[in-house]
């Protein structure tokens, strides 16, 4: 009877908690009625006291119904007081050994006090349906006070909020004690099967009968419809082996010879071992170091940065709780170079704008346009079958197979016979690395001399062509950029260039420059700017935006519903950070939260972290996407009045495998200049092995989150249009965190509590509450209730009717109309004449000669005002170095792992034959070498070889192949494992961090950019030596 009554009460509570459609309706009504009633002070006092009484009752009821909640109540013994400022309302809640006693009246010495300014606020905010904006407004205006130690106040507030989620059901029973949950990853959404608290399998999501039907495109008499399921990347399929990896950090650890109050032994980072410590000890050390460093050195002495990626989830990615925490303590952020965009950001942007997309173009409607009108696709440094675009799993694969079915010609320009070329076939043209710009200029030469370009378009929609034409024809420098001239530089037979140019000049052609347009290994080399710039110029000559003439290789531009709002991770999650994330676009209005602001102006460029630490000074240029000129604002380190870095709080993936000349980073870690290093990491790998304190984070399968398939938002607005279906996913907490690991949110909260920052950090709610708040901020509540979404775990957005599909990118531009694609950028002020007309450039047109560069530095030899051929500063023209190191190494983004995720750490990815090779019990990274080069060095398949130059040496397994030209070698970047044979930073690495070899020189001086694909090396069989040379 008592139980039934309790259940009834709890159901009533749910009715008022906006979890279902009915309850949303009831809630709105209740709020209206109560607001009306509260106009009477007396009534509001009565209602307030009723609510406070009910709260005590509900705690007891929840404990009765939910064992886990009951168990939680045993955590603490203390008394909480809730009252109004005038004490007209007051009630205490005493927690004692799991029992809760609620009494009216004022307590003389409560441990926790929540004070509302008036009783009508109690009625508004102490209820399950409270409006979060009103709650925040009350906090900011001091209408709501919180006193007591963070440990207790947070516990009390979370307990109140847990009452609401305690009974919620999630997941689907799959028989035999197995429950099927949902999650999301960097490589696609998944079903997660769990039995006895353990993950047993992870699969793609197969849609059921009730999910939306997909779109169909009819082209050339054939109907094309994608399959009703999601695809997954290899690294996603391997997740189970990463969750249960023996390299998981399961406990907080301290380096054995690190004593925060004595000898720190910084020089032993990367050498000495670790001992297990408690969370309390670990967070004490970290919190005390934060205080000490701020006290001893002043602002700016704390450095924090992340990898480029994290485990998936809008709330858990690197732009959410991380900046919320660090903004709250004040820190010097590591600013990212536009690592996958480089040449597009620093180069192409000046020709066509698109600063908000870091120089990459819009991609709307291109799948349909390509299928209907295109006759040829040129893949140029484009391997979406290896890189999944980004986050896009194999969604684009089926669409590229449609191209093949339609008999559309395909050409692949890449020094590596890549996986897209291998799958689809078509002509392979392998230029020498970093010479793509020469090939592009020669194509333009053929078009100009054979009259094969769109003259009307060039006249009406572009500026500056005549000047560039003079350069191409050799009128400026006496060198006509003929196919024969190109052959000397890029090595493509002149006849092939002529054939390609004639095909391209007479066929409606799509240019896939990069895996998604605006990426591509060619943009990450010494001449990356000039390559990306020439891609824009070629398309400007062929009428960009006309039917069948556009950018892309079917990786983006599906006809999904872009009008349905759901944020990507770059929109800031719970960061409260309006400056450092894309929160200002939508989320600051949609998801009310406390804003957070970093008070430190100092910044460190990610590629110059070692110099900042070791030399104490460096400089950089910002990846500022607001406007074209944002990238020109040089900054110095240290910033005026700021302290140099003394403490490094590292979070996420390792830089050893992903940045450039990375022995520098190893050396920086071992410097006394860094007084303290803490690393918050899931696995013991890469940089984590160089920390003083290790904080074990859990994976996304062990915490709550919410997200969409392939939606990063921000720098790639509508990036989900890589997918065949828009899929929003509730990332269930599938299993409990392993060992003592915790979610990043929880770790930051634990440290925050020790700094008195608990309440502003978490706003007193749990991670699941944040998911609900994010859900409420999207368009999802219009189509599915929270309860249903939480239970099922995903929602498929129906595609729009054919007549409501997005228009094709650049069609508006080609036809000189106002922009009609669904993109907010550029900002209104960046239109030169009329809002919505033209591009972001000063002329509003495609510019062959760039106005922005003319204004900034017209005489910069490294970045001329129009694109020219500039030989690589590390390549076949750098004679002395080339003689010593005659092999050109390219190191694209890896195929099977995602950055450092899923590599090494005993993941099953290691057993993929083309990822690592097991030799004598050790998994070696692979270097691919042409048979002729191999023969000249007596290297056979699977021989252990040393790949080296003056910067370092990496021991790899050789794969002898025809997939690279003689003189070029290929190895992926992003090894997670760093395993020096001798002294760290000074010896050969068996782990496979190829980026030890790549140059740290910026692509151009006036930038913050990496040129990893301009790298000269030598290779020889390895005899077991430790040294680099």
């Amino acid at each position, binding site marked *: 009877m008592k139980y039934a009554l309790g259940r009834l009460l709890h159901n009533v509570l749910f009715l008022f908690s906006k979890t279902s459609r009915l309850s949303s309706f009831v809630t709105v009504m209740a709020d209206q009625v109560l607001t009306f009633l509260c106009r009477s002070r007396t009534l509001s006092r009565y209602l307030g006291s009723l609510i406070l009484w009910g709260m005590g009752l509900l705690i007891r009821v929840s404990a009765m119904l939910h064992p886990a909640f009951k168990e939680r109540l045993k955590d603490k013994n203390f008394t909480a007081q809730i009252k109004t400022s005038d004490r007209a309302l007051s009630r205490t809640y005493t927690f004692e050994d799991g029992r809760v006693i609620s009494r009216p009246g004022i307590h003389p010495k409560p441990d926790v006090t929540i004070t509302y300014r008036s009783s009508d606020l109690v009625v508004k905010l102490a209820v399950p349906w409270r409006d979060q904006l009103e709650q925040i407004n009350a906090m900011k205006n001091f209408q709501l006070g919180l006193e007591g130690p963070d440990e207790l106040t947070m516990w009390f507030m979370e307990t109140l909020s847990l009452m609401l989620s305690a009974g919620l059901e999630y997941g689907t029973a799959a028989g035999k004690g197995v429950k099927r949950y949902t999650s999301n990853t960097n490589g696609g959404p998944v079903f997660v099967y769990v039995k006895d608290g353990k993950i047993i399998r992870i699969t*793609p999501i197969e849609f059921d009968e009730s999910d939306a039907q997909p779109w169909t495109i009819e082209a050339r008499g054939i109907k094309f419809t994608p399959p009703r399921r999601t695809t997954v990347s290899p690294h996603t399929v391997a997740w189970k082996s990463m969750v249960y990896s023996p390299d998981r950090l399961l406990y907080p650890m301290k380096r054995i010879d690190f004593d925060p109050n004595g000898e720190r032994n910084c020089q032993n980072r990367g050498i000495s071992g670790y001992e297990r410590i408690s969370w309390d000890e670990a967070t004490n050390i970290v919190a005390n170091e934060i205080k000490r460093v701020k006290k001893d050195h002043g602002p700016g002495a704390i450095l924090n940065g992340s990898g480029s990626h994290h485990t998936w989830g809008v709330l858990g990615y690197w732009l959410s709780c991380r900046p919320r925490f660090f903004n709250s303590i004040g820190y010097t952020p590591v600013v990212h170079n536009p690592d996958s965009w480089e040449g597009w950001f620093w180069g192409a942007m000046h020709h066509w704008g698109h600063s908000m997309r870091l120089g990459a173009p819009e991609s709307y409607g291109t799948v349909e346009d390509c299928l209907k009108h295109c006759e040829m696709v040129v893949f140029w440094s484009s391997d979406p079958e290896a890189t999944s675009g980004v986050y896009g799993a*194999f969604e684009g694969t089926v669409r590229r197979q449609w191209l093949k079915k339609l008999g559309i010609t395909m050409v692949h320009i890449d020094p590596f*016979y890549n996986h897209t070329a291998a799958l689809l076939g078509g*002509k392979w043209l392998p230029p020498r690395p970093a010479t793509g710009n020469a090939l592009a200029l020669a194509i333009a030469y053929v078009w100009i001399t054979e009259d094969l370009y769109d003259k009307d378009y060039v006249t009406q929609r572009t500026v500056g062509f005549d000047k560039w034409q003079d350069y191409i024809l050799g009128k400026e420098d006496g060198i006509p950029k003929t196919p024969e001239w190109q052959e000397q530089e890029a090595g493509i037979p002149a006849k*092939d260039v002529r054939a390609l140019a004639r095909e391209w000049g007479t066929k409606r052609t799509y240019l896939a420059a990069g895996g998604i347009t605006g990426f591509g290994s060619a943009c990450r080399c010494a001449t990356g700017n000039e390559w990306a710039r020439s891609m824009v110029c070629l398309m400007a000559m062929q009428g960009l935006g006309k039917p069948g003439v556009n950018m892309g290789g079917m990786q983006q531009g599906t006809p999904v519903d872009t009008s349905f709002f759901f944020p990507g991770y770059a929109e800031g999650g719970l960061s409260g950070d309006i400056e450092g994330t894309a929160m200002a676009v939508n989320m600051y209005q949609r998801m009310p939260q406390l804003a957070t602001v970093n008070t430190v102006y100092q910044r460190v460029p990610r590629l110059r972290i070692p110099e900042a630490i070791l030399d104490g000074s460096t400089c950089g240029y910002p990846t500022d996407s607001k406007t074209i000129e944002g990238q020109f604002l040089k900054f110095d380190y240290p910033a005026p009045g700021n302290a140099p870095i003394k403490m490094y709080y590292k979070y996420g993936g390792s830089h050893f495998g992903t940045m450039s000349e990375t022995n520098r980073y190893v050396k920086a870690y071992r410097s006394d200049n860094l007084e303290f290093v803490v690393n918050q990491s899931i696995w013991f790998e890469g940089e984590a092995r160089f920390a003083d304190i290790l904080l074990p984070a859990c994976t996304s399968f062990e915490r709550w989150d919410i997200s969409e398939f392939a939606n990063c938002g921000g720098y790639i607005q509508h990036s989900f249009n890589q997918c065949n279906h828009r899929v929003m996913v509730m990332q269930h907490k599938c299993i409990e965190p392993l060992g003592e690991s915790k979610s990043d949110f929880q770790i930051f909260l634990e440290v925050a509590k020790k700094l008195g920052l608990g309440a502003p950090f978490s706003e007193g709610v749990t991670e699941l509450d944040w998911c609900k708040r994010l859900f409420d901020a999207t368009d999802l509540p219009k189509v599915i209730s929270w309860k249903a979404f939480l239970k099922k775990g995903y929602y498929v957005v129906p595609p729009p009717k054919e007549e409501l599909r997005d228009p094709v990118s650049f069609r508006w531009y080609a036809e000189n109309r106002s922009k009609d694609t669904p993109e907010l950028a550029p900002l209104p002020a960046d239109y030169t004449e009329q809002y919505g007309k033209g591009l972001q450039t000063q002329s509003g047109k495609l510019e062959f000669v760039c106005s922005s560069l003319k204004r900034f530095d017209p005489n910069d030899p490294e970045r001329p005002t129009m694109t020219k051929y500039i030989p690589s500063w590390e390549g076949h023209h750098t004679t002395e170095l080339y003689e010593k190191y005659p092999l050109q190494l390219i190191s694209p983004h890896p195929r099977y792992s995602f950055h450092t995720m899923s590599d090494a750490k005993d993941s099953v990815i*290691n057993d993929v034959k083309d990822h690592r090779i097991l030799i004598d019990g050790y998994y070696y990274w692979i270097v691919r070498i042409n048979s002729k080069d191999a023969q000249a060095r007596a290297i056979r398949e699977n021989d252990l070889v040393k790949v080296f130059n003056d910067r370092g040496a990496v021991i790899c397994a050789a794969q002898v*192949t025809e997939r690279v030209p003689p003189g070029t070698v290929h190895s992926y970047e992003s090894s997670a494992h760093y395993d020096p044979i001798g002294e760290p930073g000074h010896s050969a690495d068996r782990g496979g961090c190829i980026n030890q070899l790549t140059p740290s020189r910026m692509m151009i001086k006036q930038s913050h950019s990496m040129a990893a694909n301009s790298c000269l090396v030598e290779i020889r069989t390895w005899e077991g030596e430790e040294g680099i040379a």
Partner: protein
Amino acid sequence: MKKWNLIIDIEKCEDCNNCFLSCKDEHVDNAFQGYSAPQVKHGHRWVNIMRKERGQFPQIDVAYMPVFCMHCDNAPCIKAAKDGAVYKRDDGIVIIDPVKAQGQKHLVDACPYGAIWWNEEHSLPQKCTLCAHLLDQGWKEPRCVQACPTGALHIVRAEDGEMQEIVKSETLEILHPEYHTKPRVFYKNLYRYTHYFIAGSVAVEKDGISDCAQGAVVTLIKDSEKRQAITDTFGDFKFDGLPENSGTYRVEITYEDRTMKTLEVGVDKSVSLGTVWV
């Protein structure tokens, strides 16, 4: 009785390894009573993807051939097993009984396809079960097929007669028919892995300018057999599907009715002739 068959299209396999990794996800650390003991995490390849590059830079192609247990109707492992440790189910799937097969290491060598692996820890021979434990629960496909993004893997449940029709209409082949084991795993476009090609680029020079010779007629002659190809925009031609050790071929190239060029090509591997000037 409808039986399971697996169809693998070599042309659609891009070595993404989703099949191999799904198999690991399903079987490592998971025991399925009556079907299988846990797979060894490292070393076992119940899906074994073989790579073959053909030709010489820059005229090459690459093919991948996943090799599974062939679920043979005339399975040598069943014959070699003691105590009926390996058996054929009515639906065509071959299962190694994880209890009865303990200690029977000789089964590893019994399979001519190398599809049986030895599990030292459990002292057990192991192989692909076609995820029979899932199919029996109503799953429509095994894990490898579900995770395949290209359609390279395809599962068919059909009467043997129906399957033979499919084999004919889609010109499917089996791997190593000379083993006579009657596999239930069929391949499409197997020539991409097993056969050779002769390829080249035809080019022409006029007034000191080199150009690709599009539209050249290339004839491949062996004994009385002739095959013809017309060169594409890049002057490229390719004769594929040449059997192993099939000897010497003659290649004749005619361009614009003027030039005739004859080459003798010995084929002991795929041959890229490079640029042929006419």
